[in-house]
């Protein structure tokens, strides 16, 4: 028996096969373009508006006014300090918890995961009213002064970061052999503190950075809780700005975007470095 080969029908079949792929690619591009337009047009419009502070001139006047405003830098620095404090508090709570759950109590993972998700479920307004009620009377009077309210605010921000922080840390822990590393360190004489700070934390660097930057991005512009706790942070500052100025709010929005994007870019960069390793 002989087998005949016919290049023409095969080529035709290949062309036929390629047609749906091409069509799919077209749809992909279309969706991508619609998505990009949806996100970028408002941003571009905001940026355009922020450049028109001086009549008839495109310039950075709105940005200049924003940065020379006596209230901007204090609010901005206060938000940064709050964010950093919340990140550290969150790390101190989440890393040992996630580590212990991975190592000794894997059955409790679902419960801990659910608890860390609560900030997603409870609206910020409900949360803040609950906190004010709880911490406005002895024995836990934390809303009496500005500084004590600020401590409470940092604690709330730490709780708000739990969904992001837990997931990041949990993913990081799953990516390494926690039990073997722990036992290896133990057999070499290390105690729990040494294991946590010399072995686990350094190997979670990327995960911790992701969680920290996400927390930073959320906390830096948070409005509702800060407003109800009468804190002079960036969120309430932005809200005031929107009510009283025309161009500066747009400039502020662009600055906030830039900070968030810088945080996201840093996450992407560090994750890529880790993958290359």
């Amino acid at each position, binding site marked *: 028996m002989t087998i005949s080969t016919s290049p023409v029908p095969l080529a035709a079949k290949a062309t036929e096969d390629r047609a749906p792929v091409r069509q799919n690619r077209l749809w992909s591009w279309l969706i991508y373009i619609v998505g990009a337009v949806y996100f970028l047009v408002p941003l571009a419009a905001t940026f355009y508006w922020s450049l028109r502070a001086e009549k008839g001139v495109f310039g950075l006047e709105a940005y200049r006014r924003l940065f020379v405003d006596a209230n901007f830098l204090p609010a901005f620095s206060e938000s940064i300090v709050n964010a950093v404090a919340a990140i550290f508090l969150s790390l101190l709570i989440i890393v040992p918890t996630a580590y212990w759950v991975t190592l000794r109590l894997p059955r409790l993972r679902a419960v801990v995961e659910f608890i860390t998700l609560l900030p997603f479920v409870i609206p910020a307004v409900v949360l803040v009213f609950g906190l004010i009620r709880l911490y406005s009377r002895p024995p836990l009077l934390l809303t009496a002064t500005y500084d004590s309210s600020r401590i409470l605010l940092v604690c709330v921000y730490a709780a708000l970061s739990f969904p992001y922080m837990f997931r990041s840390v949990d993913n990081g822990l799953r990516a390494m*052999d926690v039990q073997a590393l722990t*036992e290896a360190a133990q*057999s070499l004489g290390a105690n729990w503190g040494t294991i946590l700070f010399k072995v686990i934390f350094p*190997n979670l660097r990327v995960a911790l950075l992701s969680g920290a930057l996400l927390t930073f991005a959320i906390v830096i512009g948070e409005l509702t809780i800060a407003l109800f706790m009468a804190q002079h942070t960036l969120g309430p500052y932005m809200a005031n700005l929107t009510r009283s100025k025309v161009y500066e709010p747009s400039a502020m929005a662009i600055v906030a975007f830039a900070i968030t994007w810088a945080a996201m870019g840093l996450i992407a960069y560090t994750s890529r470095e880790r993958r290359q390793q």
Partner: protein
Amino acid sequence: MSAAYLTLESVRKEFGAVLAVDTFNLDVAAGEFVSFLGPSGCGKTTTLRMVAGFEQPSSGTIRLGGKDITFAKPNERNIGMVFQSYALFPNMTVGQNVGFGLKVHGRPKHEIDTRVKEMLELIQLPNLEKRYPYQLSGGQQQRVALARALAIRPQVLLLDEPLSALDAKIRISLRAEIRAIQRELGITAIYVTHDQEEALSISDRIVVMNMGEIEQVGTPFEIYNFPKTQFVANFVGSVNNADAEVVDPTNGILSMDGVHLKTADVDMSNRMKGDKVKISIRPERFSFAAEPMKDNVVDCIIENITFLGSVVRIQISIGNTKFNMDTFNNPFLDLPAIGAMEKVMCSKEAVLVL
């Protein structure tokens, strides 16, 4: 054997309703290399983990150098451990990994540096101090893990299937290296493996385990040649098993499908005429009868011949029972034809009654 250095006394471990290790008794002498051998789930790793302190015995006592360490914390035992997954710290260089234990113990920097160099020389990787674990091969990583475990000068070295993740060639060279290092340092070592060849080649003594219990403890020679149970005979090496009946217990005569076989088994004196027994014969203990011997020359039919490289496996029938017979390959081997009637023999010591 010298006095016990590591003692496990009636050690038992239960995980809920599951009995993982049952009444484990073992004395290990200083400088001895003991392997725990058995199938998955036999309790060998659990026993090792109890020695390391990662699991606590449900009952029993573990003593090291005369000191009761049954409930001591793992970081207070001075026991080095090598893991199957290497468990090198990914954030540290090779040098930092090897020096980690000494740093934890607060040793001065110059002492750590000297010891790290010494250990890297020992494992023949002196130039890799600055590399990270991900820059090393599996074999190199495991050697670094060994150096790290030895750097703290442990009283006992535990190795939990350290070669399982490596390819066959590296496994063979590395196991010889592990044994050479252990001998050079004179360190007491316990090695867990399910690979019988590995256990036979590396150990002073082997503990064969099954379902949480010790089946037999002995030298590799004893374990292979004189297995005490059917499990040991079957688990370590290849073996032919057959049913037989005691004909003359005084002279060790058995009958298998009407064919008389003689055994040197010492337990025969405890048997009665007519007792049903199981016999085991290693395939290499058979040979073609070039001249009549006194013991166990029997007729057989050649059923099949399989070429296995260094060995040729011949399947024979003695009466109604099929046996495997192994003979070393050589280019001039004169093999019988399939279906031919031949005479084979085995010594009475080769017939084990289990």
